[in-house]
């Protein structure tokens, strides 16, 4: 590593809101984090010259050099394993996994090393590695490119797991992840990469950002409306937040109010926000793309039911993928939960 990376000029982070796609909001977050902390470095397949298959790291190698934006050999176990080593040396590696289905070769490193190293070190070191995983379906892709493996990580003690749904959250949450002392898995909703939204960037904007592990009421229902009955809490995250908002709009036209909670963080889970909403509406539906069986919805349902049992008018219902491998793209629309399917569950939870 004799080449010295071109160091960007001291970077005045932008603060005025701009319109960015979710993908570009991540690019901006990575850029700003790298400028702010020279220990941040990026590792992954094709992330340098190519800028990543989704172009999320586009321009970053040119800006920060090959030592900080590392095109790695094709080996996910070692991307994670070397990241652990780099973190032990004081670096903050951000690992890009090219697609959801390719994270499994790294599973042992993630579950047995990254997640457990802090407990093993017992205070004598940290491994603040960030793992970025473009995930989820709906992009018409071939096998292994449309999966939703978040439950594996959320069930793993020692990891933090987040799933931004909007460009602004993508920016904020990634920047926050990059100040965490713990490993963070970022589930990036790949079919929303091209969705646009206003993003306030820069260090100053981080002060406005909600806490990393808080949920967000993406569409509130007023206390009165909730008290009147016929309102339902819909819990979503990542790619299904858009589905939930679409459903909410359709439901509103039929006089049903959906309070949409965007979880944002999957582990730890902001149970409080969901429970509070559930207590007001008395009805909850959870929606995600992963198979329902032992998906995030199971935990949300179990936890919310435990905390709000006597407020619930109906069991928490779950809408999600089926108990089969992700199907061929030509039928994925039948696999993925859409607004229609969500509204069907809303009807059921309302006993309509």
């Amino acid at each position, binding site marked *: 590593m004799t080449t010295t990376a071109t160091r960007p000029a001291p970077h005045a982070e932008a603060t005025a809101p701009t319109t960015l796609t979710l993908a570009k909001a991540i690019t901006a977050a990575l850029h700003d984090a790298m400028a702010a902390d020279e220990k941040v470095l990026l590792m992954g*397949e*094709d992330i*340098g*010259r*190519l*800028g990543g*298959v989704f172009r999320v790291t586009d321009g970053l190698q040119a800006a920060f050099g090959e030592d900080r934006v590392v*095109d*790695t*050999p*094709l*080996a996910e*176990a*070692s991307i994670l394993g070397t990241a652990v080593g780099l973190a032990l040396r004081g670096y903050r590696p951000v690992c890009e996994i090219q697609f959801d*289905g*390719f994270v*499994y*070769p790294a599973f042992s490193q993630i579950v047995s090393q990254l997640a457990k190293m802090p407990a093993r070190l017992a205070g004598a070191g940290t491994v603040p590695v960030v793992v970025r995983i473009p995930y989820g379906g709906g992009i*018409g*892709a*071939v*096998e*292994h490119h449309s999966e939703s493996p978040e439950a594996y990580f959320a069930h793993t003690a020692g990891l933090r797991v987040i799933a931004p749904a909007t460009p602004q959250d993508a920016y904020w949450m990634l920047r926050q992840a990059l100040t965490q002392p713990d490993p963070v898995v970022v589930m990036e909703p790949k079919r929303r990469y091209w969705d646009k939204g206003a993003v306030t960037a820069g260090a100053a904007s981080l002060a406005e950002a909600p806490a990393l592990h808080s949920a967000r009421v993406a569409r509130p229902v007023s206390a009165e409306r909730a008290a009147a009955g016929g309102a339902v809490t819909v819990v979503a995250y990542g790619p299904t937040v858009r589905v939930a908002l679409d459903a909410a709009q359709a439901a509103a036209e039929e006089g049903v109010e959906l309070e949409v909670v965007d979880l944002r963080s999957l582990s730890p889970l902001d149970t409080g926000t969901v429970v509070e909403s559930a207590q007001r509406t008395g009805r909850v539906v959870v929606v995600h793309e992963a198979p329902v*069986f032992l998906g995030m919805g199971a935990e949300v349902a179990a936890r919310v039911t435990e905390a709000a049992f006597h407020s619930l008018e109906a069991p928490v219902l779950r809408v999600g993928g*089926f*108990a*089969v*491998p992700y*199907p*061929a*793209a*030509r*039928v*994925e629309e*039948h*696999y993925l939960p859409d607004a*229609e*399917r969500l509204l*069907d569950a809303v009807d059921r939870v309302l006993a309509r």
Partner: protein
Amino acid sequence: MPDAVPAPDAAVQLLDPSGTRREDARWGALVSGVGAEQLRERYRDMALVRRFDAEATALQRQGELALWASGTGQEAAQVGAARALAPQDHVFPTYREHGIAWVRGVDPLQVLSLYRGASHGGWDPRASGFHPYTLVIGAQLPHATGYAMGVQRDGDVATGDPARDTAVLACFGDGASSQGEVSEALNWAAVFRAPVVFFCQNNGWAISSPTSRQFAAPLARRAEGFGVPGVQVDGNDVLAVEAVVREAADRARSGGGPTLVEALTFRVAAHTTSDDSSRYRPREEDELWATRDPLTRVEAHLRATGGADDAFFDAVRAEGDELGARVRRGVREMADPEPLSMFDHAYAGDHPLVAQERAWLEGWIATEPEEAR
């Protein structure tokens, strides 16, 4: 650091880029049965596969396929390797093995159904000995080694019966060589002397990463480090590939254990239709490899030796057009799978949850308003 990407002429070569046949006592003998007629067959395979590939690329541009991973430039490697196999041999391919699929008799439309997003494969490996395309890089190599261990247990090695002794071809790319599972599979095959031919098409690139990012020594030497003979072959020379793979397959079938063959070739197109190789690959490289085309040299050789004339090449071209038309029509007419088919093969046995979800979706589709479908 040793040179990891030598020019293919330094490797085993029987037909040079100009179409001149090189004398080579050892390797030449292995393809002594390949005369003009057989060479025409191989040319025809390569030309049809290339035509098919071009059609697939066009179909992707027209929105008929979700994606296409072109094999253009790798026809000699694939056809040569496939022609070295016996009917009872088995192939564990990557996602780019269209030329091998072709020779093994897999319906091209089945391959396209995968890239259309209409299936995950679905051809019958028991019929063709050609297993499903594997998209997780390197994962098929342990399958190949395991399959070969099954061959050993069946006693289908070293019987001396050419219709029985069985080899397994394990395909992978230069990028794949970095995956731990690839090293593991090579090592297992060495330890168990399993009848596997590890067949790497080193096409210079793994998406945007050149081979210098994958290894610091030639793969053939890597093989030797595991106790496995390794051979580098000009992957754009269909004859040389056939010779080298034949020797390796013969060794496997006769109980001599695995071999690694590294075929030096070039991915002429971008990684897939979603990729843009101009972002990372110098033009000169494309130009250089254009001079090493696998079809040109066979055509030149056949013409120079009187092995084929215009009529032959015209006929192959016409056949290619026919194939193209058939493929185009087939894809355009390809029915989408039944939505409920996603439940059909997840489990071979009964599964109450799958049955319940299937019933739910069946009802849902039946009651959904027409336009939502």
